């Protein structure tokens, strides 16, 4: 036996830690939207890079899983690539970029466009799990507010938005009420993704490493975005389709093309966009397929 590299336990974390995290996850699933404290470990990455999500993934992943990691919808950005490589190394699991093939999808700030199915698990990386944090700085007080279901303050924030901007200007980390009880921060996903959480077939787990909290939305759970009767919740709308695949009704990123104001809108979900292009969909900036050029 050569000991060229250090031996890690399967999926990096030791078994005791995984048990502890699994207990927290089970409790979180039992109380949808409730933030369960857990003993977050040091991970070989800085806080803010997804230590919470990585610990959740490490605790639930098995040798037969297929892992997909996205960062702002993309499979090919630094954070996604390194976390995927991390698990390929320490858990030796199969990885994929295809949403439909994945059993576990770790995500930073997006929900894939393709509807998730039963058996899939979506793991969110959460920077600040407390939706009331910027309104009430005291943790003792926010916990009490959750316990007593005192959520008037959450609407104060939405009121401020309308007073200042004429509409609810919160576009990401848009607060939701889970199963009619706990108000939850869906992590900084765009509010475009909020309706996808409602009665989703997939299990949704949220891990906040620095803040040491885990929460969950079990499959088929009601997730309702907060709003006012005369200012109902609505998602973002885009004026043009994706410039590469021509998709409409999806979340788009703006990409700057030059320094003369040129820009394009493309799908934030790279796998979805690629898949559509492979099926022959073309946006206005897609160019011609290679065969045609030859």
């Amino acid at each position, binding site marked *: 036996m050569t000991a060229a590299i250090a031996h890690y336990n399967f999926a990096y974390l030791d078994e005791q830690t995984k048990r502890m995290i699994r207990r927290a996850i089970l409790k979180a699933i039992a109380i949808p939207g409730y933030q369960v404290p857990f003993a977050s470990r040091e991970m070989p990455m800085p806080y803010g890079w997804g230590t919470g999500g990585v610990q959740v993934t490490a605790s639930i992943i098995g040798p037969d899983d297929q892992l997909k990691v996205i960062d702002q919808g993309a499979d090919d950005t630094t954070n996604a690539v390194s976390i995927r490589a991390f698990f390929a190394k320490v858990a030796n699991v199969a990885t994929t970029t295809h949403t439909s093939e994945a059993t576990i999808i770790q995500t930073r700030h997006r929900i894939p466009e393709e509807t998730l199915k039963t058996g899939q698990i979506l793991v969110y990386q959460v920077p600040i799990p407390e939706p009331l944090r910027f*309104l009430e700085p005291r943790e003792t007080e926010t916990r*009490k507010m959750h316990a*007593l279901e*005192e*959520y*008037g*303050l959450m*609407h*104060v*924030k939405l*009121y*401020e938005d*309308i*007073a*200042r901007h004429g509409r609810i200007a919160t576009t990401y980390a848009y607060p939701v009420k889970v199963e009619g009880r706990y108000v939850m921060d869906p992590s900084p996903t765009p509010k475009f993704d909020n309706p996808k959480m409602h009665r989703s077939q997939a299990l949704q787990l949220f891990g906040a490493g620095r803040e040491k909290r885990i929460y969950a939305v079990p499959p088929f759970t009601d997730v309702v975005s907060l*709003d*006012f*009767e*005369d*200012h109902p919740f609505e998602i973002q709308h885009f004026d043009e389709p994706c410039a590469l695949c021509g998709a409409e009704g999806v979340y788009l990123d703006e990409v700057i093309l030059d320094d003369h104001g040129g820009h394009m809108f493309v799908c934030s979900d790279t796998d979805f966009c690629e898949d559509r292009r492979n099926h022959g969909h073309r946006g206005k900036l897609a160019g011609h397929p290679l065969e045609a050029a030859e």
Partner: protein
Amino acid sequence: MSIVDTDEPLLKVQNLSKYFGSRVGCADVSFELWPGEVLAVVGESGSGKTTLLNCVSTRLEASAGTAEYRMRDEKFRSLFDLSEAERRFLMRTDWGFVHQNPADGLRMTVSAGANVGERMMATGDRHYGHIRSTAIEWLGRVEIAEDRIDDQPRAFSGGMRQRLQIARNLVTHPRLVFMDEPTGGLDVSVQARLLDLLRGLVTDLGLAAIVVTHDLAVARLLSHRMMVMKDGRVIEHGLTDRVLDDPREAYTQLLVSSILQV
């Protein structure tokens, strides 16, 4: 000023005591408060006025004694036996608390409108237009111009902040308001206007109030009855005019004679 005619008091406090270790905060205080009645608690600094107020308003746990409150369903409940959820609900619906320092009672980083609207949203109002129009109405009642509704209280003067705090408390039509030195730290002309406003609101809305103050002039203007405290105990208790015009206890006489005459 008219006292609402009713058979039963709103609040009954008996033998209330609060000790901080071996020190006495307040001791053996008993009184009753009727709907629409304003009770002033006066005394020098450290006499236990604020401790008493905090105990009665359940912000502090009393060491001994009882306090019973007639809820909106006309049933008396012991305040110290309420669950935390019930107490907090009472605090944001049927009660108000006006702090001496408005920053303690306001959210300084959200607009005046949201400050007034918070209690409405906390009690389930989910209609923006309605919340806003009610906020505008209340700002008007406390003499804050409508165009200041989207300004944060940080941009307000001390007097305006205090008036905003009052509006924020009264928006849910409480029956009982606790005030801790409501005019403290304001200059005299602003004080006079605030007192005028408070007096009007108390009469119009039929509020019961417990006002803690060291300023006898405030007590004279606002209150029907008065308790004089010294070293944590109530030493004299009676109609405001009687206590101020004909003080019986030596200490009250001293207090009354200490008012500066200009």
